[in-house]
């Protein structure tokens, strides 16, 4: 497994220094991504999915964030390599796109310049050559008349176009992995679908792996082949898309499906997960979901491990004996 995987994250932990001491935000995160595989990371706000993505490229604020564990990309540990090694890998081997494209682009440089400089930071090409290749990249992500758009500033473009620019920029050096941190959350639904299609197509054409971070289970179903469900800083379920949608094994996954709006619920109140996510500073021992879980038992005060069942991993003592409703 380790040989064939592109990214191998092992026991990743992220801590934040606060006035009250070190607070863990994610702990014991282990997963791997094979070349060309599209993996979704799903969870609600604050579950640690975004910091997980940022930690891989060393983008967490260095003054307050501490990272432990191992994240091997093509056999090299991202978490311990030097700044300059990580810099050469960022943008070239691993690309990244973000939630708000407007704020992720530098407002005072043209989009063309921002794409070209990425290419020129990693390859030895002339200014002219960089321009031509950037225009080609803009065309490939579906930006109309790219020669003219090259000299536009980001604020002139719509959100969807800005995200396309971000994608063109992240992919200009043909990375093997793209980390996408909620890239469609800030966009209209129709634009969202276009961006998803675009990522799907580019990943297929280039054999590029995708780590897609989102809170939207529907988007993951369209795009990804495998999904990691995060709850309170831990992976609670890791399974292929079909099996998790057909028959989730963790009560939290099932509860997420139940709280998705659908037509059969017309006129009825949308089921919600009662209670709230425990804070990281006072995380309960044992199963972190037990206070909100409809299937909790006295035994759940012990700490469940992420156990393998068939082709999936689940962090629940009752994974074998529960039959939970899925989304289909």
């Amino acid at each position: 497994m380790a040989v064939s995987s592109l990214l191998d994250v092992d026991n990743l932990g992220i801590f934040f220094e606060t006035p009250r001491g070190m607070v863990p935000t994610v702990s014991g995160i282990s997963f791997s991504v094979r070349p060309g595989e599209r993996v979704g990371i799903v969870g609600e706000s604050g579950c640690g999915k975004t910091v997980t993505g940022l930690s891989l490229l060393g983008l967490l604020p260095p003054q307050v964030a501490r990272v432990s564990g191992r994240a091997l990309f093509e056999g090299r540990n991202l978490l311990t390599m030097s700044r300059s090694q990580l810099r050469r890998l960022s943008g070239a081997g691993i690309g990244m796109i973000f939630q708000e494209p407007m704020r992720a682009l530098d407002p005072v440089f043209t989009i063309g310049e921002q794409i070209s400089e990425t290419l020129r930071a990693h390859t030895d090409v002339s200014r002219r050559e960089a321009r031509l290749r950037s225009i080609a990249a803009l065309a490939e992500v579906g930006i109309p008349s790219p020669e003219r758009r090259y000299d536009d500033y980001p604020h002139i473009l719509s959100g969807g176009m800005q995200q396309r620019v971000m994608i063109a920029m992240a992919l200009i050096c043909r990375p093997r992995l793209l980390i996408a941190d909620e890239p469609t959350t800030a966009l209209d639904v129709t634009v969202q679908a276009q961006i998803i299609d675009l990522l799907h197509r580019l990943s297929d054409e280039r054999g590029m792996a995708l780590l897609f971070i989102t809170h939207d289970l529907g988007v993951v179903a369209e795009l990804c082949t495998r999904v990691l469900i995060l709850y309170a800083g831990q992976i609670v379920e890791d399974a292929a898309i079909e099996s998790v949608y057909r028959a989730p094994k963790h009560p939290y996954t099932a509860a997420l499906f139940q709280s998705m709006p659908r037509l059969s619920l017309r006129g009825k109140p949308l089921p919600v997960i009662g209670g709230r996510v425990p804070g990281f500073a006072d995380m309960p021992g044992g199963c972190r979901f037990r206070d909100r879980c409809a299937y909790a038992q006295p035994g759940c005060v012990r700490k469940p491990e992420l156990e393998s069942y068939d082709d999936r991993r689940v962090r629940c003592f009752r994974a074998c004996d529960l039959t939970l409703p899925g989304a289909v």
Partner: protein
Amino acid sequence: MRAKRMARLIGYSLLQAGPVLVVATFMVFALMQLVPGDVAIALAGENATRARVEEIRILYGLDRPILAQYGSWLWKMAQGDMSVSMLSAEPVFDSIQRRLPVTLLVVGLAMLASLAVGIPLGLTAAMHPRRLVDFVVTAFASLGIALPGFWLGMILVSIFAMSLNWFPVSGMAKMATDPWGAVWHAILPAVALAASGAAEVARQTRSALLEIQSSQYMRTLLAKGLPQSQIFWKHGLKNISVTLLTVTGLLFNRLLGGTVVIEAVFAISGMGSLVVTAATGKDYPVIQGVMLTMVVIVVAVNLVIEILYAVFDPRITTR
């Protein structure tokens, strides 16, 4: 397209500067109207005969409606006819022409010093936030803002002019015949004037760069693997340039006001000392002339800065 946008912006800025100039010049003109009692009597001086007062009234056009007076006053001013000083009988335009370069030299040197010291200090502090160098710069900045310029001027004179004899104690050399001497004379006053300016520039630069460093596009630049030097020198500097422009504009206005005190401390005959003498002697034509000159300079500087904004920030367009 870029050229067209710039042309439109310059036109727009000029349109905006026009009304500002009209209002400001009207206020300068209105100064005469604010003189307590009858202006003609004030102008005629004490012990003037009734006939002399009437003569003055007609001479200065004080018998005409106020807008007409303003119009002809503005027209005269625009042609460089600023009438004569009531104290020395020297044409106001001549004394301004003689003194303005001196003030501009001091202010220019002070601007240069403020920016040359303030920007690097602010950048250094922001690059090492909450480290020793940051604390030192922040402390220096607070001190620089708190210290009065005239006090610093006196300290500088006693150390560098009187004890060490490196610089002249006071006065100014003739700029036309001895330009280096003039610069030499202007250094201490400029330093005294620049201290608070440098402090302000350092503070603004620091906070602007810190804000930009925590922005999301800085994270993108890291994620795409740009070298640190390029992130800082290319993206960082261009993004803080708008803040720096604003600071520069405000700084210029402040330094221009600050010269009044500094010129008094260093006994420099510039615009500041001219207006002080005029104000104590109720020499209204001189006060008006100085104010008008200052207003025109300030409006012109702001106009240039307004246009430069658009060069550095593509988001700024005509609304």
